[in-house]
C-alpha cells in the first residue's frame, strides 16, 4: 500500500505527490488562517499589554504570566483538575456499567442504547438549562425530592454556594457525557468473543475473575482512548460551567476556560487572557501528545 493511487498515464502535468498536495490546499489554507495563525498569535499576545477595545499594544515581557502565577493560577488549575477528573471518571464508571449490562444480551438493548443517548445528543445549553432548573433554589425538583425524603432540612441553593456549585457542575457534565462513553465501550465489548468467556468459565474462573482476565484486556484500548479524550475535552470545557455558574459563586467553579474568557471579554485584557491561555495550552499539549502517542501505537494513523 505504498503508492495506492493510480499512476497518471496520459497527459497528467502534475506528479501524484503534487496532485495530493493540491487536494489539501483549500483545507490547509483555511486551517492556517483560522486555527494555526490565531493560536500562534495568541501565544505572542501574552507578552504584551493590550486592550480588547483599543488598538495598539505595549511589550511587557513576562508581566502577564507573573500576574497569574502570583494570583489565581494555582486555584484555577486545582479547580480545573477537580472538574476534569470528576466529570471524566464518574461518567466513565456509569457508562461502563451500562455498557456491560447492555452487552449481556438484554432484550431491547439496541432501543435502550438509543434512548440513553439523548442526554449526549441534545445541545449543551439545553443540558445546562435543564439542570439549572433542577438545581433551582426556590422551585427546583431536586430540593423538592430531597425535602420529601428527609435528606435535607431546608432548600439548598446548589448553584449559589461555593461548597456545592462544583458538585452540581460535575453532575451536569456527567449526565451529558456518560452516553457516548457507554456507546464507545459497548462497541469495544462487542468485539470480545463469547468463546473466550466460555473457555475461561470451563477453567473455573468466576465472573469477576473473567472480567479482569478476559473482558478488560480486550476493551483496555477503547477505555484508555475514551478516558483520555474525555479528559482533554473536560480540561477545556466551557459551556456548562459558563451557563450554570459563570465561574462563580466567588470563583468556586472558575476553570481555565471561564477565566480566559472572562478576562478577555469581561475584563477586556487580551494580554492577561492569552498569557493564561498559553499556560493552559502547554498543559493541554502534554495531554494531546499522549493521545497522539496512544493512537499512533495502535497503528490507527497509518
Amino acid at each position, binding site marked *: 500500500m505504498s503508492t495506492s493511487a493510480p499512476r*497518471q498515464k496520459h497527459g497528467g502535468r502534475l506528479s501524484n505527490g503534487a496532485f495530493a498536495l493540491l487536494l*489539501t490546499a*483549500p483545507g490547509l489554507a483555511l486551517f492556517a488562517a483560522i486555527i494555526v495563525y*490565531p493560536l500562534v498569535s495568541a501565544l505572542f499576545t501574552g507578552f504584551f499589554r493590550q486592550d480588547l477595545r483599543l488598538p495598539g499594544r505595549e511589550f511587557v515581557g513576562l508581566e502577564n504570566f507573573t500576574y497569574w502565577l502570583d494570583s489565581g493560577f494555582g486555584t484555577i488549575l486545582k479547580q480545573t483538575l477537580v472538574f476534569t477528573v470528576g466529570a471524566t471518571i464518574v461518567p466513565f464508571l456509569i457508562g461502563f456499567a451500562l455498557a456491560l449490562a447492555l452487552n449481556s444480551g438484554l432484550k431491547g438493548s439496541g432501543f435502550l442504547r438509543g434512548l*440513553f443517548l439523548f442526554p449526549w445528543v441534545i445541545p449543551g445549553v439545553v443540558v445546562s438549562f*435543564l439542570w439549572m432548573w433542577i438545581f433551582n433554589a426556590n*422551585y427546583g425538583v431536586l430540593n423538592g425530592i430531597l425535602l420529601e425524603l428527609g435528606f435535607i432540612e431546608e432548600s439548598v441553593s446548589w448553584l449559589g454556594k461555593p461548597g456545592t456549585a462544583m458538585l452540581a457542575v460535575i453532575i451536569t457534565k456527567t449526565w451529558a457525557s456518560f452516553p457516548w462513553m457507554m456507546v464507545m465501550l459497548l462497541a469495544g465489548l462487542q468485539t470480545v468473543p463469547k468463546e473466550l468467556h466460555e473457555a475461561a468459565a470451563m477453567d473455573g474462573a468466576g465472573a469477576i475473575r473473567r472480567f479482569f482476565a478476559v473482558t478488560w484486556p480486550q476493551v483496555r484500548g*477503547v477505555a484508555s482512548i475514551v478516558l483520555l479524550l474525555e479528559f482533554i475535552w473536560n480540561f477545556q470545557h466551557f459551556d456548562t460551567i459558563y451557563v450554570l455558574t459563570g465561574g462563580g459563586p466567588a470563583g468556586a467553579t472558575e476553570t*481555565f476556560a471561564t477565566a480566559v474568557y472572562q478576562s478577555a471579554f469581561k475584563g477586556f485584557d*487580551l494580554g492577561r487572557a492569552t498569557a493564561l491561555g498559553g499556560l493552559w495550552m502547554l498543559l493541554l499539549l502534554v495531554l494531546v501528545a499522549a493521545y497522539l502517542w496512544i493512537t499512533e501505537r495502535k497503528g490507527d494513523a497509518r
Partner: protein
Amino acid sequence: MTTTTTTPLPRDEKAAPMAMTTPRPARRRLRKDLVRSRIAAWSAVLVIGALGMLPVYWLLVTALSTPGQAFQFPPKLIPTEITFSNFSALAENDQLFTYLVNSMIVATITAVLSVVVATYMGYSFSKFRYRGRRSLMHLVLASQMFPQALLLVTLYTVFSSFGLLNTYTALVLSFTTFTMPLCVWMLKGIFDTIPDALLEAASIDGASRWRTLHSIVAPLAAPGMIAAGLFAFVRGWNDFIFALTLADKEKQTLPPGLVSTYIGEFQTAWPELMAASLVVSVPVVVAFMFLQRYLVGGMTAGSVKS
C-alpha cells in the same frame, strides 16, 4: 482499528458445538452465572436508566406545565393538567424566530463548506502517500483538541479588524475550526474503505485523477459525506461560545440566543425555556437517528474505529 484485533466469530454457530463439549459442572456454573449476570444487568439498567432519564421526564413535564404549576413548591412529580401554551408562546416570539433562521443558515453553510474542503483533504490523506502527510494528519487531529476559549480571543480580534464581527461569515469560519477536522477524519475513514483497485481500473480506462474523484469515488462515498455533513451541522447547531461572542442579536444562533432571552431575567420563565429547549433539540435528535450507523466512527472523528 483499535478494537478489531480479534476477528469477531459468528457467535451462535460457534457457541453451540462448544456447549456440547463443555463438561457438566462448568456448564452449570455458566448457567448460574448467566442468570446472575442477567439480574445484575437488569438492575444496573433500571437504576442508572431511571436516574438518567428522570431529568428528561422533568424537561417534558415542565415544558407542558402552566407557570402556576411549575412555580409551586414542592413540585408535583406527576402533572394534573397539561398545556401547549408554552410552545405557542415561542411561535409568537419574533426574536426567537430570527435566532432559529440564523442557526439554520449558519449550520448548513458550515456543514457544506466543511464537507467540500474535507473531501479533498480526506481523499488526499487516504489514497496518496507523500512526505509530510502524517504530520499534516496529526496536525488536523490535534487541532480539535486546542482550547476554543483561547482560539476565540484571537479570532475575535482578527474578525474585528476585517469588519467581520456580527456576520454569518464569522460564525461559519469559527464553526469550521471544529467541524473541518471532524469531517476530514471521518471522510478519510470512508475513503479508506474504497478499494484501490477501483481507482486503478478507472485509471486504466483512461479517467483522469479529477474525474476518478468526482465521478467514481464521490458517488460511492456519498452516504459517508452526508453523514459527515450531518455531524458538522449538529456540532454547528450546538455551538455556544463562538456564537455568543462573535455575533449580536441580529446574527446570533439559538443557543446563546436562548441564554440572553431567558437567563438573567428577574424570574426565568422556566416552562417556556423548557419548551424552547425541546424545540432546539429536535433537529439534532432527528439527525442522530440517521447517524446511528456512523455513531462510533463519528464520535471520535475517525480516531477510534469499532
